């Protein structure tokens, strides 16, 4: 049964670009990108218990790094992409040093402040980032000789990257390190007493989350071929946070579902409903009221209750 469901999902995902028009292919590609981004944030929010409102820094920085390297220095994508990710990781390590001086609300405010610094820099350093005009004229890379400018090719590329990212994140969560991480979330003091270096565990997770945030940033800039400071803004961080909370933090599928909801509301429903922001609000209120721990755990609970009857 479970295997059949997996098979169906894989067939559906593989057949999707051939069954629908370009718009819907691109829509799902965007869901993939948002899903990686939300899943990386979920490592912090759900598994480490560290609510971050600055996760857009990693998406934005990787995107800006890649854009600047290819545009200003003429680097090839095969060189620019690893460099952009390396830059993002270094930045995540630095940000971790600062932000992890606190937990809880303090951590939230520090991450928010750090990301606002980046956002302000991107806005103000016009000579480098072109400020509010954004960087344009970017290209998509060729992957294994395939031109990703084609929407179907990009769809499969994004699908591949997403599958790998989610697998890697799942690996970390399921590993002994993941267990220790859950321990620091539940009982930090006890973990400390048991001899675990709580701070180090959190720092490594922070960097790891930053890395996957950077991966989603690369996909983001490849997809849009344009980058603007808005990608670094609080709104961008908050959208990822909402995805995680709506889908269910601390679950692997939660952020994927949450990201899908946000992208569909923002890019699809908004064409029919003028006040889609309001609808988004209603959806979240409904989720919080009826399934306080998110859609995925909520549906799971409903399923279990029906199953017992």
């Amino acid at each position: 049964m479970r295997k059949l469901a997996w098979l169906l999902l894989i067939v559906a995902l593989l057949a999707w670009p051939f069954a629908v028009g370009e718009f819907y292919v691109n829509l799902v590609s965007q869901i993939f990108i948002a899903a990686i981004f939300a899943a990386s944030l979920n490592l912090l929010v759900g598994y480490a218990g560290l609510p971050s409102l600055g996760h857009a820094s990693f998406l934005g920085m990787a995107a800006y790094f890649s854009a600047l390297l290819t545009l200003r220095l003429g680097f090839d994508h095969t060189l620019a992409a690893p460099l952009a990710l390396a830059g993002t990781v270094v930045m995540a390590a630095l940000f971790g040093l600062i932000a992890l001086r606190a937990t809880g609300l303090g951590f939230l405010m520090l991450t928010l402040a750090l990301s606002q610094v980046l956002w302000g820099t991107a806005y103000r350093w016009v000579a480098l980032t072109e400020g509010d005009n954004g960087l344009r004229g970017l290209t998509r890379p060729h992957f294994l000789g395939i031109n990703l400018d084609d929407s179907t090719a990009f769809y499969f590329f994004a699908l591949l990257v997403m599958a790998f990212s989610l697998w890697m994140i799942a690996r970390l969560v399921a590993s002994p390190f993941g267990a220790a991480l859950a321990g620091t979330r539940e009982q930090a003091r006890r973990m400390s007493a048991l001899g675990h270096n709580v701070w180090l565990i959190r720092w490594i997770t922070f960097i790891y989350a930053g890395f996957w945030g950077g991966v989603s940033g690369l996909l983001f800039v490849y997809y849009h071929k344009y980058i603007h400071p808005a990608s670094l803004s609080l709104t961008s961080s908050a959208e990822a946070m909402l995805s995680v909370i709506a889908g269910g933090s601390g679950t692997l599928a939660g952020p994927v579902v949450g990201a899908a909801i946000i992208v569909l509301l923002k890019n699809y429903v908004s064409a029919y409903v003028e006040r889609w922001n309001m609808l988004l609000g209603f959806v979240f209120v409904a989720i919080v009221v009826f399934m306080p721990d998110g859609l995925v755990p909520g549906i799971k609970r409903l399923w279990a209750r029906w199953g017992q009857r």
Partner: protein
Amino acid sequence: MTFDRRRFIQATAVTAGAGALGMPAIGNAQEQPIRIGLMTVKTGPLASGGLDMERALVMYLRERNNMLAGRKVELFVADSGGVPAQARSKTQELVERDKINVMIGPLAAGEALATDDYIRQQQLPTLSVAAAEDMTQRNPNPWFVRGTSTSSQCAHPLADYCIKQLKYKRMAVIADDIPYGHEMCAGFQRVFEEQGGKIVQKMFSPLTVPDYGTFLAQLKTNIDGVFLGFAGSNGFRYVRQFNEYGLRGKVAIVGGMTALDEAVLRNMKIEALGIITTCWYSAKLDNPLNKKFAAAFQAEAKYDPGFYAAATYVEAAVLENALKAVKGNITDKAAFMKALRASKTDTVRGPVSFDSYGNIVGNVYIRKVEREEGRLVNTVIQTYPNVSQFWTYKPEEFLKNPVYSRDWPPAKNLES
């Protein structure tokens, strides 16, 4: 925590299913209607202008029974929220799902730049409202024409007016800290200083600044006037605070094309009286087309049409004219673009044509806020006929300079 695969699949499948339900049935009629996409802003800080854009365009099409050049038209409206990345995905939606033939919009400079390469790639004829200078200057897009104006197109004549008619010598400028504000101030400064004036103070306030107190306290009072390069409702807020600070009567105000738009003028009182602004349009323009449009808009919206309403109304008129020239055959995009660029149209803003870069050449009006029938209006006091984006400069020489910005042209006369 383990990876619960069943939930993962179910959750993802629900999402995929939701997308599939919304798939449109694409039919192939013999004579398909012309599909027009409007890229506007209906949420966020720029929404008031964006809604005016939609209202005026719908009015234009309704007045013609949704027929342009003998063909039925369909309108598709998308809301970018003023966010460039969103504008891009919305443009994709209009092109890939709604299969539009031509796009009107977007509104903001950043949105135009974000969609630039996509417009080229899709070869999508676009009639833009956004003012970003380089879209029709150093890096012109062959599929892009602008029926409104560049940021500085109306600021150049105002500087000329300040020197020649108002005899101003020393001025300050303040604008929103966005490319639109920078470009407008730079254009004003260039003409003003080349004709012997001095810009002694330059200030750029954040677009969403809650309070202009600090900027008003800094403002020099030993000057002849201050130029406002604001967008949206910022001009309104600045002028109101200007009045509260007791500066009214001490320093004169002149404004750029969106500083005291009709859309905000309706909320203003005596503090706005007498202020001189520049724009390519005024609801008070005395031509038969505009008299009809302004009256109809006023009847529907209960306020006068301004920059944004006139923008789409003008674009629609230009579009109709070009469609007539190609006998409604919009599928031959190259021929249509050629007709669009060659078109000469009589519009509510007066007669317009395009330069070889795709930017409009038309009248620019110097206007003064006056009271009429119990409401404030922008009365036209002088007309600069057929102003191009290059003012009186030669295009080649103009384009050799860097694009207008915070730092170019350099301000040499600043006094600290």
